[in-house]
């Protein structure tokens, strides 16, 4: 039975790769239709296979003696030493199977949606090839059996993200955004890599199984060495978290994500909302036992960085006017939510509520955020603009989009019975039991989330009606169907019994909604919505008044607290002008100048020596006479 499911998993990985190779090599030899069909068809098979896997795993044989098992199958790919080798393999456990479902579902939706959204675009085939590459890499990432395999696919998703953000490569802003995304995440990956190196040095393994076994030797007696006052393993896990923070756009490495919205909107839905950006969360979840048992201090750091990020992003989201950027900041905020949940989690049974809720939120968020992005895509498709100012009153023209968008907004605002309510509630419960400050912060963020989401919603679908050049219309079946499907998912996923399926130790526990926390959280959500309704449902000047009242804060927020400028300063001024340019100058003038100087003085010396043999008789005579005189004088005196 095990081998059967492994083979299915291999197929899940192989199909997108095959798609990528076929579509990539054929490129424009395929018509748009063929390419789209091949891509979508391949992905639907992948999705079906993932569902089979998930069903089999969760309900058939995954549970042995009440504990969900880890199934691993791998082959050695590159051998470093006897203990260290990169394996390529497949690891099936609750979170990876859950991720398979999320990725393949969202990816399939995006594939279908793109048939309509990207219709007639130049490079349509390339687009599908890249989508397949991304899907392959992301799937490979989640089923990684060891941390190095994860790193490999981690890089691959980074590159696919780069390629897809820069899809409109003739647009300078897209190129810039792609570069930024890649370099920022690359910088974070450096931390990841160093973390891996440190971890592997002290534990002598890359394998997740060995690293995360709560009864294993690594957690049992961790390396006691310290570096600069912290245990080396803390350094390792912190640096690994840095990699995760980069991918998941945690403060202060978040700056690439808003810019990444330059990519096609379906890509934003797939990569920058539902899947790739949660890789950081997934990474921490994957190594959770290590974090929890060996380096709890780092876990606290994770929680606080998460909390800071979620608050920051929620505040910034309130002032953005580009609808995709609002969603981007909302994504950052929600992912940070998941990080907080991991940070406050314990291990085993009900203590592991944070872990469970984090995964739960990841699951529900993937669907409703993809839905939001695809809805935003439909809006953009209809009005050809990203700016909220160009929209308004669209509910009449885009009914399907309107309804599904509303569902998603209610979900993210935490209104029952939509999925977001359930997962967010669990997170708040976990935070409440762990740390009151974090709880307060997250509670505030919940209210802000409701506010900015409904600001967005009203700004797009209500408000004053702009004059449109042509009547906006829905994008056809290919675009509506995914919206509806994801809308349905948003309605139902909240009822998935996650506490039965995904827990820290594989054992189910009983969880119930803690109304003492749920009711205030619903209230704060409703309050946020109410404020947004007052301010934005009808055109009014309250927003301007508020903005003027908090002018300095508003401007800072609107400029995303100047993070981009700081980075730009650091990269342009410090790295480029203060390091690279001097180095280049130093190389050309000092190092090379030194070499040239040697050549110069050799040349000088030799031409001076040659000067003695100048061929000037008079000089010879002079030297001859002078020497004769000197010698004679020496002889005489």
């Amino acid at each position: 039975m095990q081998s059967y499911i492994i083979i299915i998993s291999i197929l899940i990985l192989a199909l997108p790769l095959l798609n990528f190779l076929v579509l990539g090599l054929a490129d424009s030899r395929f018509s748009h239709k063929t390419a789209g069909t091949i891509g979508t068809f391949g992905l639907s098979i992948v999705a079906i296979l993932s569902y089979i896997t998930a069903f089999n795993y969760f309900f058939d044989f995954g549970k042995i003696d009440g504990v969900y098992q880890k199934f691993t199958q791998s082959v050695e790919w590159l051998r470093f030493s006897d203990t260290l080798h990169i394996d390529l393999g497949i690891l099936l456990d609750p979170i990876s199977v859950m991720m398979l479902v999320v990725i393949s579902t969202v990816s399939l939706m995006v594939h279908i949606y793109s048939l309509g959204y990207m219709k007639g675009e130049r490079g349509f085939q390339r687009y599908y090839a890249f989508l397949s590459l991304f899907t392959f890499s992301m799937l490979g990432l989640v089923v990684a059996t060891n941390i190095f395999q994860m790193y490999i696919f981690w890089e691959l998703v980074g590159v696919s993200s780069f390629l897809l953000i820069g899809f409109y490569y003739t647009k300078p802003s897209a190129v810039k955004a792609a570069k930024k995304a890649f370099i920022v995440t690359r910088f974070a990956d450096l931390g990841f890599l160093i973390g891996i190196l440190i971890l592997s040095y002290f534990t002598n393994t890359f394998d997740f199984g060995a690293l995360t076994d709560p009864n294993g030797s690594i957690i049992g007696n961790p390396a006691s060495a310290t570096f600069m006052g912290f245990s080396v393993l803390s350094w390792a896990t912190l640096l690994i978290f840095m990699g995760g923070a980069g991918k998941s756009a945690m403060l202060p490495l978040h700056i690439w994500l808003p810019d990444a919205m330059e990519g096609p909107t379906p890509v934003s839905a797939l990569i920058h909302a539902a899947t790739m950006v949660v890789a950081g969360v997934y990474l921490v979840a994957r190594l959770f036992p290590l974090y929890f048992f060996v380096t709890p201090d780092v876990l606290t750091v994770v929680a606080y960085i998460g909390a800071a990020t979620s608050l920051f992003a929620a505040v910034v989201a309130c002032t953005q006017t580009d609808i995709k950027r609002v969603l981007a900041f909302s994504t950052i905020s929600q992912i940070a939510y998941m990080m907080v949940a991991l940070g406050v989690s314990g291990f085993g049974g009900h203590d592991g509520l944070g872990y469970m809720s984090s995964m739960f939120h990841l699951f529900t968020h993937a669907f409703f955020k993809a839905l939001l992005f695809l809805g935003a895509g439909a809006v953009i498709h209809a009005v050809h603009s990203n700016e909220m100012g160009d929209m308004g009153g669209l509910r009449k023209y885009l009914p399907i989009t309107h309804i599904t968008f509303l569902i998603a907004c209610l979900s993210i605002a935490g209104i029952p019975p939509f999925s977001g309510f359930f997962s967010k509630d669990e997170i708040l419960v976990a935070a409440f039991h762990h740390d009151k400050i974090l709880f307060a912060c997250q509670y505030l963020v919940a209210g802000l989330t409701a506010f900015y989401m409904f600001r967005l919603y009203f700004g797009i679908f209500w408000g004053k009606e702009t004059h449109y050049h042509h009547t906006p219309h829905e994008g056809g079946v290919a675009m509506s169907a995914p919206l509806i499907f994801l809308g349905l998912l948003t309605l139902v996923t909240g009822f998935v019994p996650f506490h039965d399926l995904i827990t820290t130790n594989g054992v189910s526990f009983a969880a119930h909604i803690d109304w003492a926390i749920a009711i205030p959280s619903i209230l704060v959500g409703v309050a946020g919505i109410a404020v947004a309704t007052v301010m934005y449902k009808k055109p009014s000047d309250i927003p301007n008044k508020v903005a003027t009242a908090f002018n300095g804060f508003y401007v800072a927020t609107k400029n995303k607290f100047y993070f981009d400028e700081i980075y730009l300063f650091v990269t342009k001024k410090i790295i480029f002008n203060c390091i690279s340019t001097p180095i280049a100058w130093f190389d050309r003038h000092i190092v090379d100048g030194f070499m040239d100087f040697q050549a110069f003085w050799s040349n000088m010396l030799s031409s001076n020596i040659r000067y003695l043999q100048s061929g000037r008789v008079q000089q010879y005579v002079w030297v001859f006479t002078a020497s004769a005189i000197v010698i004679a004088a020496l002889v005489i005196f």
Partner: protein
Amino acid sequence: MNFLYLFVIIPLLMMGGVVLLKSDRAIKIFMLIGSGVLLAASLILLPLFFEARALDPEAAMVMRSDIMWYEALNIKLSLGIDGISVLMIILSAVIVFTGSFVSWAMTEQVKEYFLWFLLLSIGVFGFFITVDLFSMFMFYEIALIPMYLLIGLWGTGRKEYSAMKLTLMLMGGSAFLLLGILGIYFSAGINSMNILEIAQVHIPVEAQNLFFPLTFLGFGVLGALFPFHTWSPDGHASAPTAVSMLHAGVLMKLGGYGCFRVAIYLMPEGAETYTTLFLVLTGISVIYGAFGAVVQKDLKYINAYSSVSHCGLVLFAILMLNQTAMNGAILQMLSHGLMTALFFALIGSIYGRTHTRMITEMGGLMKIMPFLSVCWVIAGLASLGLPGLSGFVSEMTIFVGSFQHDDLFHRVLTIVACASIVITAVYILRVVGKILLGPVQDKHHEALTDAVWYEKIAAVTLIIGIAFIGLLPFLPSEIINDSLTAVISKL
């Protein structure tokens, strides 16, 4: 007769053929066929090597044969290979092959050009197949001299200056090297130039401490060791395409290979004494080369600085003196050889069309020449270490290997060297963003054509090599590991 002789005889015969042929076209076709034969021979060598290895699993080198050259000093032309040399020979053959293809566009003094080109490849092949210090040195010099003429006559820009600089600096390096070799020869005291025989005896530690730095520096100059790397940007920038390819792709590897085969293998204690110093230098090379590449505007300069960085990593890993890191170093040589050759081939192709190498004067080439651009992106991704391409494998092997060193200093240095992957990403993406993506910069460029057959063959061959190492790293890695034991056992 030893199969290895073929690698000197085939180019020699080809030189004869080139001399006899009249028309340029015939010479070029002849070169393509000849280099194809060389490539085939290098691939045939692989099974032959395995066979010989199976017969004699203990020996450090197989397929040995000696010819006495100079009785009085016991100088022999000793041939012998191990897995590492085989891989290097294949690398050289691939690059000579692709180099011949990209030279198709050559129009001036074709016959002379190919004669020197072949002489250069004789030097390269000869270096990899011999195990005799004297012959190695001789082939090393044979490989250096043609560079002067190839750059000085067929180059672009400040070619005389660059050719002079390159030759003089490398010659300076080989002066150190000669001292080192003589030192090894005399302090070993067995009247033999054969590396294998010298490896059997223990060179006194004082002598090692004296001659290791000389030998290492001698080879290090060729391996672009900071601060002796400055010939590289100028030399590469001026050299004609195929020469840049061969030079960066293979000749710079002679440095790393020599450090490994001569300096470390014969003088392990000396190596240990000096690792700290040279590690710092190579560490500087790695970071410094990468930073240097960030601000350059000329494509060839960018690639030359990136070569400094990558070749620095080779020497860096060799100095870590452990099996994994050395394995990574050899992989990095292969990987960098293929990658940089691809880069130079593409730069040549782009330059041949746009007549500029300044990244500020180009833009949007992706739309105009998609094939070349995609190849460029692949080369760039390989260079910044994308998994699935060769750069990742070699860099990771180096980093993991280096980090296994028990000394904290070495590990900290490794972390510093790791930082180069970010900087590499910066300069690669900068170039990709500037020249390939974005709007078309120069309206005249819109009429340009994409790659033609010979460029396609060259690029595809190199990409296959890059992908092969990237996807199946365990194949070369096993061959290397197997051959490393001889060196490791001496440490």
